[in-house]
């Protein structure tokens, strides 16, 4: 698209604006084309990089009015970043965005004549807030207080209430006692006992297979038996590796569970 084509389409799309505003906007793009040309770019490549004139025009007004059908369907394939050039009628209703603060029109005009008070809130008021998921959403910014009720209610689930220091200490002592006197002696004993049992059988199988293979003069049956024992030995070695991994995993889950129990999180 040439410069004059681009400007004509942009001008047409801005036809609802006052002439002064429109000229002001068009001047910005005139300047853009001029500087681009000074840097040796073609009109085609500049207008391609600028994007669709209709969608640019729509973004000048979308704070105030809903623009429907200002862009032609075939243009969506024309530009390199289709995800950004959503057609206006795909945009969700304006009020959804004025609530979360990012909607540009509503965002800045909520506090007319007054700067957002983002430094005034004392720290102590934060610690009195319920310790829920949205803590990082510092509550001293006015529009978040609006957004907080509808948007973050789901975060105030009971399982997110942390324990007090006393409860945490009690659980910690309980878990240490349980671990030291029950889980480690019994669970650890069984785990280590089994480990050595498997290892012992493996060593025995290995020894038998070596003995049988060495005594191979005794006959073919003997050799086959030796090979069978060697296979058994190999199976036990791999079994031992898997078993060790399983035990490690089991104990790590156990300690994870302990920490969740102590912190009062995620225990359903």
């Amino acid at each position: 698209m040439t410069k004059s084509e681009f400007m004509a389409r942009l001008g047409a799309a801005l036809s609802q604006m006052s002439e002064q505003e429109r000229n002001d906007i068009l001047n910005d793009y005139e300047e853009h084309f001029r500087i681009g040309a000074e840097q040796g770019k073609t009109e085609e490549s500049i207008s391609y990089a600028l994007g669709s004139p209709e969608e640019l025009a729509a973004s000048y007004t979308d704070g105030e009015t809903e623009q429907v059908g200002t862009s032609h369907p075939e243009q969506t394939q024309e530009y390199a970043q289709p995800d950004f050039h959503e057609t206006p009628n795909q945009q969700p209703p304006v009020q959804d965005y004025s609530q979360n603060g990012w909607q540009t029109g509503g965002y800045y005009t909520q506090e007319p004549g007054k700067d957002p008070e983002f430094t005034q809130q004392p720290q102590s008021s934060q610690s009195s807030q319920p310790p829920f998921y949205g803590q990082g959403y510092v509550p001293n910014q006015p529009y978040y207080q609006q957004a907080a009720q509808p948007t973050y209610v789901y975060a105030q689930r009971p399982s997110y209430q942390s324990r007090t220091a006393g409860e945490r200490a009690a659980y910690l002592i309980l878990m240490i006692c349980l671990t030291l006197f029950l889980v480690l002696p019994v669970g650890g004993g069984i785990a280590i006992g089994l480990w050595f049992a498997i290892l012992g059988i493996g060593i025995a199988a290995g020894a038998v297979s070596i003995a049988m293979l060495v005594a191979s003069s005794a006959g073919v049956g003997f050799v086959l038996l030796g090979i069978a024992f060697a296979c058994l030995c190999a199976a036990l070695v791999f079994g031992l590796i898997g078993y060790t991994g399983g035990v490690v995993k089991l104990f790590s889950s156990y300690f994870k569970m302990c920490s969740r129990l102590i912190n009062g999180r995620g225990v359903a």
Partner: protein
Amino acid sequence: MNIQFKKGVLEMCVLLMLESGDRYGYDIANDLSQTITISDGTVYPILRRLKQEEYVTSYLVESPGGAPRKYYAITPKGRELATMLKKEWLTFSEQVNTFVNRGGKLQ
């Protein structure tokens, strides 16, 4: 990405770019579109809106051998907004990253 959300983030980016010095529109558009996937034209509506809300001001500078360029400068009010938006963005993106990295599980 949602267009309104992206626009809010881009306003922050433009303000942050202006924090280190005045720039003209083409320069902003060119630099920003090299790092973030946007069309160059996107910055002009943003600059206009920021100017209307008095977060930036503009002035014309004669360029040697060319037509005047419109420079944008951030106002004290704009600096405050940039600081606030940056803080919010860092908190928000960190929370979302944590959430995403946990595979969408709440805990």
